[in-house]
């Protein structure tokens, strides 16, 4: 993976992990406060903290997808390909894979790797269009899935 992809995905994961660590810290302190042990921190309802962790995952998952879409568009541009209309993510994933594999790389992007990214696209679309009961994988796993796709791209 190029440093640009790798650094950006790692930066996003690190930021997400920091947010979740802080929320977990407050969750533990809140439990102590509830049991009557002084923690020096206000009490937060466990449900609210769980919801905040879930929302944080979704927010950083969306950020990862947005950055990935940008990287894909940049790659297509760098190949001198002019897409007349704004491409959908669906088109970008397939176009990126096709164009990259046409360069006869040592390690092509395999269908199952593109398929996993398509699944993330489906999850993003479901989430963006307000369907309930649809969540992303954990951010750490998303970084692995997207990392495999961008692994060979320049």
């Amino acid at each position, binding site marked *: 993976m190029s440093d640009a992809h790798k650094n950006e995905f790692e930066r996003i994961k690190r930021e997400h992990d920091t947010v*979740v660590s802080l*929320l*977990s810290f407050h*969750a533990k302190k809140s439990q102590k406060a509830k049991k009557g042990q002084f923690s020096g921190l206000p009490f937060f309802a*466990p*449900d*609210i*903290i*769980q*919801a905040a*962790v*879930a*929302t944080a995952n*979704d927010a950083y998952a969306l950020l990862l997808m947005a950055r990935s879409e940008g990287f894909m568009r940049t790659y297509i541009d760098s190949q001198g390909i002019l897409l007349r209309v704004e491409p959908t993510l669906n088109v970008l994933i397939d176009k990126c894979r096709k164009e990259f594999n046409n360069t006869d790389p040592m390690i092509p992007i395999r269908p199952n790797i593109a*398929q*996993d990214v*398509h*699944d993330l*696209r*489906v*999850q993003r679309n*479901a989430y963006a269009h307000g*369907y*309930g*009961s*649809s*969540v*992303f*994988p*954990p951010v*750490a*796993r998303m*970084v*692995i*899935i997207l990392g495999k796709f961008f692994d060979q791209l320049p």
Partner: protein
Amino acid sequence: MVVLPNWLDQLPTVDFTPEKELLTELEKWAIENNWNVSDGSSLPFELRQRTDVLLNKPQHEQTIRLAVLRKSRNGVGVIRVDSSNLRTVELLYQRRQPHWRVEAGGVRVEDDLRNRGWSWLINLMFQP
């Protein structure tokens, strides 16, 4: 089955049979082991939006939320499992074998859930 997420049957081109079978198996185990099973409608909005099946043990203040992730037609079946102590585990369907792999943060914990069973998974979520 106590709870069947109805949206699984509303996507005619995508087959969620393995997910439905696994949830059925889990719900049976949960009832036998004194967990309350529901669709999560009692949860606050943001958690309810991300929950298909809720397991709840009020006396221990333990809850487990399960969510079937969306997938494309040939996509990998994934069930996300979140516990009330903020741990997350994923169950990934391996179509060729076929079995469910257990992963945490993208790291494989167990290749086949059936090797260890549901009690092991739930203990894993709540062990200190």
